[in-house]
């Protein structure tokens, strides 16, 4: 196994681990903004899950998102040179298209981050921009995670 293959494998593993952390954080926050419950509630897993303080997640989500985007950007040339050609030869164009869409939506998420972060610095829990920017980021992160997983299953770097 060549050195660049080992470094790509390590990068891919780190990329996957960071994306799992990001997915967990953003899902927690999405659930918390959709189902706000009494913070003193004690009964049941669902109530405990939704009663988390979502404000504390915002900065961590921004850091994880940018880190993961940079890791993905480092791996992108390898995908273009190795994996994409194989996928095209196998006529798996919807998989190629989904990956292209993931890249564009990933950039959209980067553009959304400052707005998202600024809404969590305010005190208005019912801020519609806060709710919708959080959910939009959740959709982007989930889509990117699933597409990345599918592409890696078909033809990993």
């Amino acid at each position, binding site marked *: 196994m060549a050195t660049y293959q080992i470094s790509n494998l390590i990068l891919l593993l780190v990329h996957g681990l960071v994306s799992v952390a990001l997915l967990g954080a953003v899902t927690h926050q999405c659930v918390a903004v959709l189902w706000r419950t009494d913070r003193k509630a004690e009964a049941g897993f669902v109530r405990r899950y939704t009663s988390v303080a979502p404000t504390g997640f915002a900065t961590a989500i921004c850091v994880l998102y940018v880190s993961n985007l940079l890791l993905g950007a480092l791996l992108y040339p390898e995908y273009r040179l190795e994996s994409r050609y194989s996928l095209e030869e196998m006529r798996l164009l919807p998989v190629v298209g989904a990956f292209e869409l993931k890249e564009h939506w990933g*950039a959209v998420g980067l553009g959304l981050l400052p707005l998202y972060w600024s809404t969590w610095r305010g005190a208005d829990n019912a801020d519609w921009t806060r709710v919708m920017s959080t959910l939009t980021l959740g959709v982007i992160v989930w889509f990117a995670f699933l597409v990345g997983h599918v592409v890696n299953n078909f033809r990993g770097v």
Partner: protein
Amino acid sequence: MASLRFSPQWFTLVFCLAYGAILALELPVPGYYPLTGRWSFGDFSIVDGTVMHWYGLTFEALILGVLAGVLLPRRLAPRVLGLVALGATWALMAVAAFLLRSYFWG
């Protein structure tokens, strides 16, 4: 020292508009050639294999977004501007999906 004034609403709005315009109109962006590791801007004579425009596209949109966030008025109805920026985000997601439709229904 005066703190840097920055409007996240303007940043997101201009980032999305710039990204969408460059993507839809295929405006020139820096291209990266992964086979040789070269960069170029609008030089179509280069034949170094596949070219990647995503880095240049994102970088150009980021630059324009940062300029807008710093230069445009910060106190101009931030709540309304935030909603407009959010709408631009959704529109850009839809535009990107539309432009890639041939992969799914080719």
